[in-house]
């Protein structure tokens, strides 16, 4: 048995005390295509970045062809024969394709002078290897389409004939034809005995292209399967998900009752913004939680933002308790009783330099006034104290800046802010992003409490299992439209079915 070209032994990595990778073992043979799959935050990109030399592992070894190496920089990774196409665009917009491809490894002549001829020739050769010999290599990258940028990134990675190639979500912006073309390219590279690590959210693609599928969950490898003809998507999806919510949540939801007779709180009719979502119709009742399921980029965040007033919509109507509303800005949405927990708490959910107290009360100051209408310190303290206690926010004091709290506790502060506001409709976009298991279940308990107190809740989570645990019904969104509604009492109200719908609709769009 030959030694694999890449062997990773017991690699761990944590960021700010969050474990991104825990004791991961991984191997890659020459001429093998291995897919890394997992939900967002499972640790795929972290593993890639360690192999790429972006940052070092905290523990563990990396062996190339049986030799122990420490990959301390992207340059070093490159010289060791590792080529990477990063998930985020890593091209310089103002430079041409050729200049980008040779950035950091320019060809020189007569001493320090750039050898444009050789660079352009090799650039054309590399592009024609990828089947894109017609690209104008003098064009600035800022004028390229998404696909062309992806091709340029791949050309950049394969320029130095690497032994190992990392492809981090290269197919994300591509359509079916382009993916097929790219797969041809990847198979060609495989024939040249290059070991390829392929990362994609599209499970079907991984089945088509890979020899082996490695599943990561919460920083650990939970499954390592050789792909054969009998393999189906569900074989990959089930280890991807695992158990993320404690069982007691499911007990809470047992007393589910029909929602039809309840009072309609929010009604959305034919809502479109012409781009991200189209013809959205639904009714949210009091004492109801509606889950939205779909892939990232399906338009759910935009839909939520438009209902609240953060974004605008083009056509359709929104009725709040039978009264038509049109929120042009977030403050109007809040006035009408619609609050939203946005998905990026660091960027638009919190003032991270401010204290826990300030962050909780910041949206409800008008309720916390004392004499002369001034903000009352006593009231802000007692209200924020109440929520810190109720939500079990772990903080040394109310005066702790939230930037020093853990992700889960930060998220609870955001939720506390909107609970204090006491809005009728609570919209929650990815409430558990980057939050550990325990905090997840606490956050969902809070949402259930909201429901029981007569509110209506809209929630999106990329983890369908979480939705299943708390929602009364789930609306599946694909490409900005509802494709299916599944009620809790339906026989197909289960994770495999919903995931199948989500993913199959994506492939329908692709094929």
């Amino acid at each position: 048995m030959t030694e694999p070209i890449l062997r990773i032994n017991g690699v761990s990595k944590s960021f700010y005390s969050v474990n991104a990778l825990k004791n991961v073992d991984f191997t890659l043979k020459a001429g093998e295509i291995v897919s890394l799959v997992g939900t967002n935050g499972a640790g795929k990109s972290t593993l890639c970045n360690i192999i790429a030399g972006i940052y070092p592992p905290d523990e563990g070894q990396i062996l190339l062809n049986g030799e122990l190496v420490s990959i301390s920089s992207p340059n070093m990774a490159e010289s060791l024969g590792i080529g990477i196409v990063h998930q985020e665009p890593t091209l310089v917009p103002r430079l041409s394709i050729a200049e980008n491809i040779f950035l950091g490894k320019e060809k020189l002549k007569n001493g320090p002078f750039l050898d444009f001829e050789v660079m352009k020739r090799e650039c054309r050769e590399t592009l024609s290897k990828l089947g894109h010999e017609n690209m104008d290599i003098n064009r600035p990258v800022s004028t390229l389409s998404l696909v062309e940028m992806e091709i340029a990134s791949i050309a950049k990675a394969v320029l130095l004939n690497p032994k190992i190639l990392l492809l981090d979500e290269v197919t994300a912006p591509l359509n079916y034809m382009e993916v097929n073309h790219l797969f041809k390219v990847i198979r060609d590279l495989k024939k040249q005995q290059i070991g390829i690590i392929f990362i994609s959210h599209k499970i079907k693609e991984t089945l088509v292209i890979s020899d082996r599928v490695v599943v990561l969950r919460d920083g650990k490898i939970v499954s390592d399967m050789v792909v054969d003809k009998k393999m189906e998507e569900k074989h990959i999806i089930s280890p991807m998900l695992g158990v993320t919510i404690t069982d007691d949540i499911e007990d809470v939801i047992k007393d589910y009752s029909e929602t039809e007779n309840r009072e309609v709180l929010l009604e959305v009719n034919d809502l479109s913004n012409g781009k991200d979502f189209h013809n959205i119709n639904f009714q949210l009742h009091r004492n109801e939680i509606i889950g939205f399921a779909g892939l990232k980029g399906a338009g759910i965040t935009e839909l939520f933002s438009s209902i609240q007033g953060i974004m605008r919509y083009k056509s359709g109507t929104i009725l709040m308790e039978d009264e038509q509303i049109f929120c042009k800005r977030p403050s109007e949405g809040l006035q009408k009783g619609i609050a939203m927990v946005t998905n990026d708490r660091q960027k638009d959910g919190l003032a991270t330099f401010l204290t826990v107290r300030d962050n909780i009360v910041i949206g409800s100051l008008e309720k916390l006034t004392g004499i002369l209408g001034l903000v009352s310190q006593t009231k802000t303290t007692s209200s924020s104290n109440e929520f810190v206690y109720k939500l079990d926010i772990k903080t040394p004091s109310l005066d702790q800046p939230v930037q020093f709290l853990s992700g889960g506790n930060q998220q609870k502060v955001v939720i506390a802010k909107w609970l204090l506001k006491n809005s009728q409709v609570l919209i929650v976009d990815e409430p558990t992003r980057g939050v550990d298991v325990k905090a997840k279940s606490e956050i969902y308990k809070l949402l259930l409490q909201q429901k029981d107190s007569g509110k209506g809740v809209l929630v999106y989570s990329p983890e369908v299992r979480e939705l299943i645990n708390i929602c009364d019904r789930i609306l599946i969104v694909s490409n900005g439209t509802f494709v299916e509604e599944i009620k809790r009492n339906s026989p197909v109200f289960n994770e495999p079915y919903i995931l199948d719908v989500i993913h199959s609709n994506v492939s329908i769009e692709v094929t």
Partner: protein
Amino acid sequence: MQTEISKRDLASTFSIQRIGKFIGKNYLLFSLILLIVAGTLVNDAFLSTANLKGLLFTVAIYGLLAVGQSLNMLVSELNLTLGASMAFSPILAIWIARNIYAASGVEIVRSGVQLVGGVPLIVFLVLLISVLVGVTIGSIRVKFGVSSLIISLGMSYLLQGSSYIISNSNLIYLSEIKNINWLGTAAIGPFPVSFLIFLLIGIVLILLMKYTRFGLRLYSTGGNEKAAVYSGVNTKMWKIIALGISGFCAGLAALMYSSRMESIDPIQGEGLQFYALSIAIIGGISVAGGKGSLSGTLMASAVLVIILNIMQIFGLASWYQTIMIGAIILIASSQAIRKPAR
């Protein structure tokens, strides 16, 4: 049929849109030509050798600082010490040189204000100190991740204050030294040597940007730092290099200025960092980094100085000139708004 096509081609080649586009693309060049023509037509004094020499000398000083600032901006940094360094570097250099010579019993500053020797050492020290000022800003910038705007702002006050303290607020006169005014006043025809040096430096930098790795490094560092790092570019080093070069430009400008004035004034250069920034912006260098070219900066320095010069010939008070600078910057920036970056 064929003639029809060629007619259409001809028409489209010379269509107003195309000409407009061409002018829009080369607006600096056209304004420069327009200004020179205007200056010549409006007043004979404009083309007089004396006026041209003065004008080109000013272009050299402003232009050098602007080129330095442009390099900083290309790597998404700023250096606000360029003005203060023009006084600080020569004052500190003379203080050091004086102490070195004093150790061997030679007094190079007579009666505290009159420089009488040690020029080669002083010139070397001026350039060294001014480079070090830039390198220091750059090092603090990359080591601690503080914005260079803030570091250089603080540093600029530090240098200004130190200049006054070291010099006891006195001017240092250079007039005793033979040919000290060569750099600032010598000319070949109507072209001052200082202007030619500036032009040479500008052209060398443009060529370096275009034909060596230097340009790609700077553009990628400012254009998308993450991409540059992933490609193995040492962006930290290139930021320090850019700031160092801008320091060098300030040092050279100080030498030219002091040579012409035959003195070193602790107030010299004050505020010129903002002229440098203005010229770079007018020349099309983006404050966000990674966009613009030095040829734009070279032309913009001439455009700005000529406008100011024409106003001067007309006897408009300096406040009008200040207003004009403001107006030009706003016009230049509004052009950037009209043409959104793709």
